[in-house]
C-alpha cells in the first residue's frame, strides 16, 4: 500500500500540471524580484499614481468636458510613460524568460509520438526539381502507413508514419544526392521534442528547433514532425489548457502575491 501511495505521489509530482504550478511560482518570484531590482521603482510608483489621478479626475470633474478630454489624453500619455518604465526591466527579463519558455515548450507544449499512432513527417525542399529526388530511410521501429504525398505547389513531401516502439529515432531524408536526419521521439512520458529541423532560419531554429541546422548546401529546407499539442488537464470538470496559458495565469497570481509581500512596485 505505501508503495502504491509513493507511486501515486511520484506520478502526481512529475505530472505536467504540478511542474507548471511549481515553475510558475518559482519564476513568478524570480521575475518579480528581478523586476524590482532592475526597474526604477519610484518612477513606476509615481507613474501609476498619476494614472490613477487622471482616472479620478474624469470622475471628479465629469461635467467639465475639457477636464474629461484632457484627462483621457493624460491617461494615454501616462500609460505610455508607464510602459516605457516597464520596458527597461523587460530588457533584463525577456531574454532569459523567452529562452526558458522555448525550452519548456518543447516538453510541456507538445506530446511525443505515441506508439502505434500515425503521425506526419513533412519535408520541405527549396526547388521543384529536388522534390522528385526526395527519399526516406526509416529505422525498423518506424514504418510508413501510406505512400508519400507530393505537394508540388509547396515543394513538400508528406509521409504518414507509425512507430512501433518507444525511443528516439533518426529518420534519414535524401534529396538531390545529399542526406539529412531528423530525430523522432516516441514516448508516453514527458519528453523534450524538436518539431522542426531547419536549414538556416536562425530565429525559427532558436524558437522551434532543438536540433542543429541542416547543411547550408542541402536541398532540404526543413523537416517537420507533427507532434501533437499537449493540453494539461486541470482536474476541474474535465477542463484542459495549454501550458503557456496556465503558466501565464499562475505566474501572474504568484507575481501579484510576491509583489505585495515584497513591496515591489509593478
Amino acid at each position, binding site marked *: 500500500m505505501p508503495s502504491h501511495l509513493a507511486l501515486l505521489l511520484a506520478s502526481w509530482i512529475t505530472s505536467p500540471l504540478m511542474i507548471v504550478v511549481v515553475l510558475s511560482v518559482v519564476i513568478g518570484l524570480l521575475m518579480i524580484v528581478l523586476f524590482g531590482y532592475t526597474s526604477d521603482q519610484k518612477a513606476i510608483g509615481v507613474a501609476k*499614481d498619476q494614472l490613477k489621478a487622471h*482616472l479620478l479626475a474624469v470622475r471628479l470633474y465629469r461635467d467639465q*468636458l475639457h477636464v*474629461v478630454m484632457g484627462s483621457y489624453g493624460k491617461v494615454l500619455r501616462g500609460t505610455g510613460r*508607464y510602459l516605457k518604465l516597464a520596458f527597461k526591466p*523587460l530588457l*533584463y527579463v525577456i531574454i532569459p524568460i523567452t529562452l526558458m519558455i522555448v525550452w519548456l515548450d518543447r516538453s510541456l*507544449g507538445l506530446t511525443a509520438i505515441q506508439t502505434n499512432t500515425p503521425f506526419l513527417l513533412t519535408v520541405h525542399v527549396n526547388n521543384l526539381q529536388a522534390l522528385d529526388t526526395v527519399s526516406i530511410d526509416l529505422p525498423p521501429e518506424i514504418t510508413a502507413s501510406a505512400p508519400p504525398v507530393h505537394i508540388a505547389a509547396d515543394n513538400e513531401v508528406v509521409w504518414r508514419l507509425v512507430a512501433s516502439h518507444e525511443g528516439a529515432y533518426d529518420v534519414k531524408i535524401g534529396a538531390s544526392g545529399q542526406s539529412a536526419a531528423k530525430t523522432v521521439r516516441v514516448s508516453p512520458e514527458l519528453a523534450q521534442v524538436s518539431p522542426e529541423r531547419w536549414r538556416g532560419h536562425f530565429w525559427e531554429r532558436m524558437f522551434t528547433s532543438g536540433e542543429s541546422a541542416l547543411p547550408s548546401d542541402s536541398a532540404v529546407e526543413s523537416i517537420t514532425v507533427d507532434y501533437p499539442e499537449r493540453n494539461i488537464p486541470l482536474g476541474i470538470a474535465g477542463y484542459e489548457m495549454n501550458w503557456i496559458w496556465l503558466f501565464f495565469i499562475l505566474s501572474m497570481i504568484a*507575481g501579484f502575491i510576491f509583489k505585495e509581500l515584497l513591496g515591489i512596485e509593478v
Partner: protein
Amino acid sequence: MSRLCSADTPVRVPGSSQKQRWSSAFAGVGARATWAILLAIVLCPVAAHAYAGPGAGFAVLSSFWAIFVAFLYSFYALATWPVRQLFRFFRRRNAYGKAVFDRAVILGFDGMDPELADRFMKEGRLPNLSKLRDRGTFAKLRTTFPAISPVAWSTFMTGVNPGKHNIYDFLACDRNHYLPFLSSAEIKGPTRQIKIGKYSIPFGKTEIKNMRKGTPFWHWLGKAGIFSSVIRVPVTFPPEKFQGVLLSGMCVPDLKGSQGTFCLCTTRAVGDKFREGGVRAPIERKNGSFHAYVPGPDNPLAETAGHEMRVDYEIKPDVAAQTARLTVGSEKFTIKVGEYSEWIPIEFKAGLGFNAHGICRFYLKEVSPEVEVYVTPVNIDPGHPDLPISHPVTYSVYLAKLFGAFATLGLAEDTWALNEHVLDDDAFLAQAYGNHEDREKMLFDALDKTRQGLCTCVFDTTDRIQHMFWRYLEEDHPAARDVPKAERREVIQDLYQRMDKLIGRVMEKIDDDTLLMVISDHGFKSFARCMNLNAWLHQNGYLALKEGKTESGDWFEDVDWSRTRAYTMGLNGLYLNLKGREKQGTVDPSEADALKEEIKQKLNGLVDPASGTVGITGVFLTSNVYRGPYSENAPDILVGYGAGYRASWDSVMGKVTEKIFEDNMKAWSGDHCIDPRLVPGVLFSSHKFIEEKPAIVDVAPTILKLFGLALPSHFDGKPWNLAPQAVGAVGVKTPAVSPAT
C-alpha cells in the same frame, strides 16, 4: 542649516544602488547587443514568447486596463454630457446666464496685514498686489468679533455673524465641567462594543459632527449649477456635500485626534514636559543601532482607554557623514542633519486587521553626541483617509496621487515645536514653505480644472510665519532679545514677496472674465506682553481660589467655583459663572447685566503698569455684538486687547497666576486675537468695488450677487457694488438682474 531633501536623496527603495550598478554594467557594448536581441524577439513574435514574466504582464495588463477604464469614463461623460446639460438647463435654467463673471477666484491669505501690505507696496516690493490696488480694489477688510481665524473664515463662508454660525474661538466652553472642547467639530467613536477575547471591537459608525452652523455660499452656487473648487478653507471639517470639490483645512485633526502633536525622539534624559503640542519619546540603543517609536492614536480595540498604538523605527547614525539611515516599516531612507524626510506612510496596527493610516515626516536634529529626531504630528493619509477630509472622499486621494502625500492637519505648520525650541527658525520655515508649495500646486490644478465657477484656496503660511517671526520686525521684542540684530532675517518681508509672486502667477492664468479677490481674515500686531485675565479676575475678586492657594493649575484646578463670579478660557472670551447655566453657577441671571457692565468698565482701558500703555482697548458685551440662534453659546464678554498685548498662554488654558502682565518670551510673537478694530484684514480685487467699509461678512453675498443669485434672507453681510468702470469693462458682463437684496 535645514533644508528639504532634494528630490533624489530621500526615500530610497531597496536595491536602488544595486539597480544603478546593473544599469551601468549593461550600458555600452552589451546594451547594443541586448537591444538587437530584444528587437529581434519583438519583431519575430512566436506564440510561446509573447509573454515575458509577471512584471511585464502586469505592466501590459494595467496599461490596457487604465486605457479601458479611462475610455469608459470618458465615453460615459461624453455621451451623457448633453443629457446632463439639458437636465441642468431645465432644472436651474442657465447657471451662468445672470453671472457678471464666468469665474471668481478668491485667494485667502490668512492674516495678511493691510498696513504691512501697504508699506511693502510703497517700497515697491509687491508689484502684483500693487497692480490689483491700481486697477481694482485695495481696502481694509473688517473682521469678526473676535478676530480669530475659525470665527472669521466661518463668517466668510456663511455670510453671517458668529451668533448664526456658532464658532466663537478655536475652543468652546463646556459649562458643566469648566473645560474646553474643540468648537468646530466633534468626533464620537461608536458607543457599542463587542468583546472577543482581549479585544473590545467597536460596533457602529464613528460620528463626526460639524459644530459650525450656517450654509457655506458654495452650496448656494452648487444648487444653481455653479461648480466650486474649495481648498483648505478653515472650519470645513467634516466636509459637507455640494456640487464641487473641497479639501478641508484648519481644524482637521491629526491621527491622534489632537490639533497636532509632534514627537521629539531623543537619547537625552527626559526633560520637562512640553507645555502643549508635543511629546518626548526615548531613543534606546540596541546592538549598535538606535530604536524609537512614533506615537499614534489610542488602540480602539483595547478594553480601556489610554493604550497608545506605536510604530517602532530604527535609526542608524553615521556621525562622520552627519546622516542617519531610518527604517520605518518597509520604508528605508537616509537623511542629513537639518533635513526632512519626505512624507512617510505609517500604519498603526490595532489587531484583528484594524489599522490606522497616517503620514509623517522625520527631521534629523542631531547624530552626535546625542541622537535626536523630530517627528511631525501624524497626519491623516490623504491617499488613504481614515477620516473624511475632502468632498468627495476621492478628492484627497486624487490630489495625493497627482502630487504625492501632503499635510492634511488643520494647523500643519508646527508652531509649538518652534515655541518649544524643538525646531529652529530654518527648520520651521522649511516645513511651512514645504506645505505652502503643496497648496500652490493644488491651487493651480483647481484653477486649471475650474474654468467656470468658484475657485477658492486659503493659505495658512501667512498666518503662521507672522505669528512666529514678528519678533524680528521689532527692535525690542522680548522674544528676540537674545537674537543679535544682524541675525534677524527679513522673514515677513520675504513672505509677502512670495505671496505677491503667487498672485502674479495666478494673474497669468486668468482672463478678464475672472474676478480675482485676495482677502485675509484679519491683520496682525505684535504680541510682546501677555495678560492673564484670570489673574486679573482673581485679584479683583471675581474669581476665587481654594483656601491657601495663590495660583491654580491648568483648566481651573484649585478654583473655588462656589465663590467665583467670572472666569476666562480661550483667547478673548470671558464667562460669567451663571446660575442655571454653569454647573456651580453663583451669579443670578438678574444680576448678570450689571456684573457684565461692571467688569467692562473696569477692564476697558486697563493699563499695563510696567509700560504705562493701555493693555485693553475695547470690551464688548456679546449680547450687543451677536444676533442669532446660537448666541447663547457665546462667551458673555469679549476682551479686545491693545496692540502688543494678548491673553497669556496660561490664561488661555484656564490657569490663574500671580502676575497679570508679563513679557511674551515665545517665538509666537505676533498675534491678532486682540481688539478686532485694530486688526482688519485686506481686500484686493482685480475689479473695482465701491464700498467704504467692506467686511468679511460681505464676501458671501457679494459672490452670490455677482453670479446672479438671490441672497438668502438670513445673511448679515451686504453685497458690494462694482464700480461703473468695472461693469462693462472687457470681459465683465452687465448684470442681468438688479442687485439682490
